[in-house]
């Protein structure tokens, strides 16, 4: 018997994409309502400038340059997204990605400016340092039963303050920012490998972007095609069953968090070693990148390839937030939209369930007639 051919809408992948689009739509609609409440006159234009982001600039060359800048910031966000995703696949909620990201930023900048190390050493150090922090959370969870969310939040603050302390040693004397890499430690800058020519000479476009995409592919392959990925996922699904099957469930947990942390730390190095931003040592809030990573991970349907698109979208609207009319609205409106998108992601299961129900109903109705 030939299996019944599934229609397009019945494909689980299509349903995931549809569910994510619903989440985005809810976020945008509520964002628009908030804009209307603040000032009805410019609401439509404000939402458009958030969605247009770099297209705000009419000249294609300038737009291309700013498109490059958005991509430069998408790379670290994608890494944070993958970090959250990797841990979540193993049943761990790595809200500590923000702290691991801070540690990656701190170590990579300190090794670049303080020790004048070349960029690849800085990348490795950032990975190791952030991996240790992640592994520590995993250890606390596996052996001492500490809730990973609360441990992660505590370590976020500890990491932030420690990095501020560390980087005060390499900051500009007149400001709170770390010394610019381009003038003080050019060896620490990531190579562009000709990529900048693709984006109207935007010098911040580096190999970080292809590396981040490569990481997404690696995470996908490891998770879906290797024995290690299978073991880690089994641990996440049922820790007792994994133990019974002879897996080292505690080590698996720690390993997961080490990898998750290392990815987040590497992401921070991708941003700060491109030279586009300097770290402010007076920072009193945990970097938002880690939290936006949670948004992108769920929006991407918890699939590494989907995350490439969702990370770009989240960064696109976050960057777009800076183009709203600052005399009327605040740029935090983008944060508000992403937060609502994350909240809507909580209903994804419900959306999918309704879709399946709807399809089943339609079929029943169809066969009757």
């Amino acid at each position, binding site marked *: 018997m030939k299996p019944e051919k599934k229609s397009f809408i019945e494909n689980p992948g299509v349903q995931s994409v549809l569910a994510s689009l619903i989440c985005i739509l809810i976020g945008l609609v509520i964002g628009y309502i*908030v804009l209307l409440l*603040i*000032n009805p006159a410019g609401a439509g234009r404000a939402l458009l400038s958030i969605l247009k982001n770099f297209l705000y600039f009419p000249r294609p060359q300038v737009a291309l340059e700013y498109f490059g800048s958005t991509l430069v910031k998408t790379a670290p966000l994608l890494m944070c997204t993958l970090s959250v995703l990797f841990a979540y696949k193993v049943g761990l*909620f790595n*809200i500590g990605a923000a702290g691991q990201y801070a540690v990656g930023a701190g170590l990579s900048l300190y090794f670049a400016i303080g020790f004048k190390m070349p960029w690849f050493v800085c990348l490795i150090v950032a990975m190791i340092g952030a991996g240790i922090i992640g592994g520590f959370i995993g250890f*606390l969870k596996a052996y*001492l*039963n*500490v*809730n990973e*969310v*609360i*441990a992660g*939040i*505590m*370590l*976020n*603050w*500890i990491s932030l*303050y*420690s990095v*501020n*302390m560390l980087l005060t040693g390499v900051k500009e004397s007149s400001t709170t920012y770390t010394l610019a890499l381009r003038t003080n430690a050019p060896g620490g800058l990531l190579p562009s490998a000709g990529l900048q020519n693709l984006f109207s000479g935007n010098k911040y476009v580096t190999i970080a972007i292809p590396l981040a995409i490569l990481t997404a592919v690696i995470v996908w392959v490891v998770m879906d095609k290797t024995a290690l990925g299978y073991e880690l996922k089994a641990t996440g699904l049922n820790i007792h069953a994994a133990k019974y099957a002879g897996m080292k469930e505690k080590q698996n947990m720690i390993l997961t968090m080490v990898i998750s942390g290392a990815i987040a730390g590497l992401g921070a190095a991708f941003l700060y070693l491109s030279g586009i931003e300097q770290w402010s040592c007076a920072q*009193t*809030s945990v970097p938002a990148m880690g*939290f936006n990573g*949670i*948004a992108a991970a*769920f929006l991407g349907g918890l699939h590494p390839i989907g995350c490439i698109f969702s990370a770009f979208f989240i960064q696109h609207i976050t960057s777009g937030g800076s183009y709203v009319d*600052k*005399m*009327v*609205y*605040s740029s*935090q*409106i983008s*944060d*508000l939209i*992403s*937060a*609502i998108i*994350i*909240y809507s*992601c*909580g*209903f994804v*299961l*419900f959306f999918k369930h309704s879709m399946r129900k709807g399809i089943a109903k339609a079929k029943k109705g169809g066969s009757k007639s």
Partner: protein
Amino acid sequence: MTLLIQYTLIYASVLLLVALGGCYSEHSGVINLGLEGTMVMGALGGALVMRSFPTLPGLAMLLMTILGAVVFGLVYSLLLAVAAINFKADQTLVGTAMNLLGTAAATVFVKALNMRADRNNVSSAIQYINQKKAFTLVKIGSFELSWFMLLAVLILIAAHVVLYKTKFGLRLMACGEHPQAADSVGINVLKMRYAGVLISGALGGLGGIVYITAGVSEWKFENGVAGFGFLALAVMIFGQWKPTLIGAAALLFGLFRALSNIYSGFDFLVNLHLPGTFYNMLPYIISLIILAIFSKNSRAPKAEGIPYDKGQR
């Protein structure tokens, strides 16, 4: 020294209120990780009352501010209640979204409000220098006892009585331990969980307004509440989900938080030559250590975090 006691008491009150909120919610079976965002919303509610009615007389100011904070916190926690109880959403995810949303929404709102009042004012701050005076209960020398401290103690006693001595409390806890069993004897699990989450929202909101009026006379909503909601959860775990122990834990954590404000007033602490940042980190470090020691034999409600499914027995 009096200053240290004063700050310890006020921060302990904040932690106590929010931790008790978390306690109600978790005993009903829902993990409220959104307390951080709920605190911001409560703080916003209270601050809006103080901003809109700056001339209210003392006691009315106090009551109205509390009401504003409680209502905002309660309504905001509906987001968690609906998602987690009716739609069986992932509670960690929803809580995280609420934390992000709380700070973002409060910032957007306050900025819009400030800009409407004065085109050039793009800050996210609300000031309440004079309004704050209404919160002082008694002043003995330089020591200020706040109404909120008294309120926190009363709520602590109430929590103990409600949870262990009333029908409602025992039923609530049954829903967090074994909801199926509770359902089988006719307790409406969904209603009980709603009650747990909404009480936690009200207390979280109240904690928020106490926090922002603790040491300063204006609050920038961009900054959120700096992880205090999560510190409160650590207090709750350290207190083993029991109100009386939570009270003691809150005092300990309050002390460490207070040290970061006023360590420079103590010669022996200054002589240690530790950087000021270290004292900022202290509460988080202590809480991590305490969590590591006390989580092993955790007495967490057994069914917390698991959506209730009638079909599962």
